[in-house]
């Protein structure tokens, strides 16, 4: 082994390989947070190296240092034997280091093609070759099997779709070292498979890859080696063949988890909400019932129309036809305000665009829906404001220096916890969670699932949208499958196989539309 790493757990021997990048005591401090304690690690040319760890463990920070996004506090980075400053993204790119960051960092006002070629535009005589770039971009996207247009404005795509574009973009650049920071967080199995194909192809081309994920099965499917970060410290590196999931989880959170999916069955109570042939932009003719004490899961591919369905139910968008019955009575939900008054709560899918006020404090984000309740007369009760925020921070283990830190300074997973946490104290009857555990670590996922049970036990109902099949599969009492805006299948708790459900979610042209209720 060529690594100089001083690992807490001695690394197993590896097939010999050339070291391409070596971290020598790499360290990062933010004001108030020691995000990365000196890390020693060597990456071998052509390997897929997974990095796992709890939310806030320092994974994204490590990536930011390697791509020149942030300056490091101390330590050395050695690229192909030579120390390098990596002071700017430009410098990293010049070496051939690229990344698909956890938060999609693209320009939402530019087209897909413009984003793919940003900074590397093709020009002739100083003029952009726009058509050629759109064509080229489309070719790349099609080649990767993504069903996305290259000429549309990026902001019109869903987050998952944007994530795919970010991945596709990396292939345009002459990359030697490519980092994926939770690329599958918003993807369904189908898109994830396409992405894995891409990653394997890149590996075949000799590209070294760092792969960060909270989904253990992906790590085992893809990686050659895996490193574990805990609280900014590298606690171990393993050959993938020589470790297993419990060991990694143990390393990550310093305790073991018996089971992630916590499922309690309650006898369903009265119907909370019922949609009758609801139609709107992006979906049509959807009839769904949610009763007290049950979780109704919605599964489908990206763009299947699940989010549009729930946001319409929530009054954010106008319905075009159909009815909404709330506790048996027909209601008009004309705004999210109406919805909240009825007793709905929605944790939306995109934390950046819909979920968070990033430049406001964590506490304010958490309390936003309940300010009315924690105000006495005109004034906010500061004591309650603090108590409520601190309770959510503790319950969900949100890693933040204080409730006054800006939401933008939290790690991705911890931001996600705010999006969920803000509704938990609200006392709604119907909770709609749209991709609630995106980017959340296993330990916290288990915590969140337990909280679901608490909500159900208090007589609430839950609509759970997830693109991660195991999640809906293991939790939903009723599982609806969406495809291209239509509800195409409905199952009970674990009554169909993963394969069947996936098959139903995939658009097969020969299949007749319509549900199989």
């Amino acid at each position, binding site marked *: 082994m060529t690594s100089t790493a001083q690992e807490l757990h001695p690394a197993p021997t590896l097939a010999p390989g050339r070291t391409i990048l070596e971290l020598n005591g790499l360290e990062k401090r933010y004001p108030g947070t020691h995000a990365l304690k000196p890390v020693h690690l060597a990456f071998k040319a052509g390997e897929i190296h997974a990095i796992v760890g709890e939310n806030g463990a320092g994974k994204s920070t490590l990536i930011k240092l390697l791509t020149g996004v942030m300056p490091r506090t101390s330590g050395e980075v050695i690229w192909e034997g030579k120390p390098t400053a990596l002071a700017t993204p430009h410098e990293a790119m010049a070496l051939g280091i690229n990344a698909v960051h956890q938060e999609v960092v693209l320009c939402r006002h530019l087209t897909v093609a413009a984003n793919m070629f940003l900074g590397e535009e093709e020009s002739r005589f100083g003029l952009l070759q726009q058509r050629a770039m759109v064509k080229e971009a489309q070719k790349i996207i099609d080649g990767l099997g993504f069903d996305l247009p290259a000429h549309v404005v990026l902001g019109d795509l869903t987050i998952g779709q944007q994530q795919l574009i970010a991945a596709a973009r990396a292939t345009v650049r002459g990359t030697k070292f490519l980092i994926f920071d939770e690329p599958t967080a918003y993807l369904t199995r189908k898109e994830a498979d396409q992405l894995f194909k891409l990653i394997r192809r890149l590996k075949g081309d000799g590209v070294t890859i760092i792969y960060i994920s909270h989904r253990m099965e992906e790590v085992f499917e893809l990686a050659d080696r895996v490193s574990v970060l805990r609280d900014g410290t590298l606690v171990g590196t393993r050959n993938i063949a020589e470790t297993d999931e419990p060991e990694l989880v143990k390393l990550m959170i310093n305790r073991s988890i018996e089971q992630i999916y916590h499922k309690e069955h309650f006898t369903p109570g009265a119907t909370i909400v019922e949609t009758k042939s609801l139609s709107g932009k992006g979906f049509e003719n959807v009839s769904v019932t949610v009763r007290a004490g049950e979780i109704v899961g919605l599964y489908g591919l990206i763009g299947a129309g699940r989010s549009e369905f729930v946001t319409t139910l929530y009054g954010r968008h106008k319905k075009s036809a159909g009815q909404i019955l709330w506790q048996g009575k027909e209601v008009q939900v004309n705004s999210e305000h109406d919805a909240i008054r009825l007793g709905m709560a929605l944790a939306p899918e995109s934390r950046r665009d819909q979920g968070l006020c*990033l430049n406001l404090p964590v506490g304010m984000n958490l309390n936003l829906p309940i300010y009315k309740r924690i105000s006495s007369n005109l004034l906010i009760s500061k004591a309650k404001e603090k108590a409520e925020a601190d309770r959510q921070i503790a319950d969900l283990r949100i890693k933040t220096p204080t409730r006054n830190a800006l939401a933008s300074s939290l790690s991705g997973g911890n931001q996600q916890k705010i999006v969920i946490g803000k509704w938990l104290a609200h006392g709604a009857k119907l909770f709609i969670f749209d991709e609630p555990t995106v980017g959340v670590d296993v330990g916290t996922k288990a915590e969140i699932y337990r909280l679901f049970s608490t909500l159900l036990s208090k007589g609430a109902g839950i609509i759970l949208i997830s693109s991660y099949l195991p999640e809906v599969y293991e939790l939903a009492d009723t599982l609806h499958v969406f495809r291209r805006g239509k509800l195409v299948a409905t199952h009970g708790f674990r009554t169909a196989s993963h394969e069947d459900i996936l098959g139903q979610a995939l658009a097969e042209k020969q299949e007749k539309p319509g549900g199989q209720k």
Partner: protein
Amino acid sequence: MSTEAIPAEKTKRNFNALFGLTLLGLLLLMWIVLAVATPSFATALNITNLLRQGSLIAILAVGQTFVIITGGIDLSVGAVVGFTTVVVALLINAGWPIWAAVLATLLVGVAIGLFHGFGIVKMGLPPFIITLATMTSLRGIGLLMTNGNSISINSDPFQAFSRGSLFGIPYLFWMVILVAIPSYIFLHHTRWGRYLFSVGSNAEAARLSGVNVPRTIFMAYILSGLLAAFVGVLLASRIGIGNPTQGDTYELQAIASSVIGGTSLFGAIGSVHGPLIGSFILSTINNGANLLNVNTFWQRVITGLLIIVIVYFDGLRRRGK
């Protein structure tokens, strides 16, 4: 998201109190320097003058700050000031009791704010456009009402107000306090204040969290219109006339005071004390230059430079270097 955000990316909210203090520090520093440099600065008379002179813009800047926190802008405030001097002058001259004339004028300010809210929320107009349009039209309406002349206000008590003092502090400055305290409580201690910030930070997230975004926007512009009308009343008292062309460029001074006081034009960052200090920094520059007998042309050059220096140092500290 924006070029402005690049250097300021590490703005620390918890430094906010300290930040206010230290901008205040810069203001105090200016006062000390002036007290040493001129015999007349630190006299009761001059302090009274200074307080009076800064008051109008200070109040406008607070109203403007509410709007800017939501990510908007209110270009109309200068025109509202001019217009409402006319309104209050006409009403008083028509024999209304002062309190009624003032109340009616304040309602005019509210109505203008409502109109802005309507334009932004219901018609989907950019705040810049709807308030620019009001700015242009209101001056026109005021000029039509006065036929381009000034209206002399026939009420001595009304005019006496702006020259009076209580405990040695001019009434005009008491008015700043009267506005600042409820504004502070409103912005920092009520949920509506929180809603202003949330709308400016991410309107969509605020909306999905149950914040009534349209109502919040209405509220911001109504407050700005109301405070501008209040300033119009105070100005009318100070100058004793109604004249629709008064208050020219006040919008710029109010926005500048707010931004000097740390408000971000991209929304979600701002306070009540910041714009107050900002406006008194600007008045102090003028007052000091007059007392030091600086050539008025040099005065402009120096004002520009001082704005750069003050905001630079304030920014340095805020970025925690």
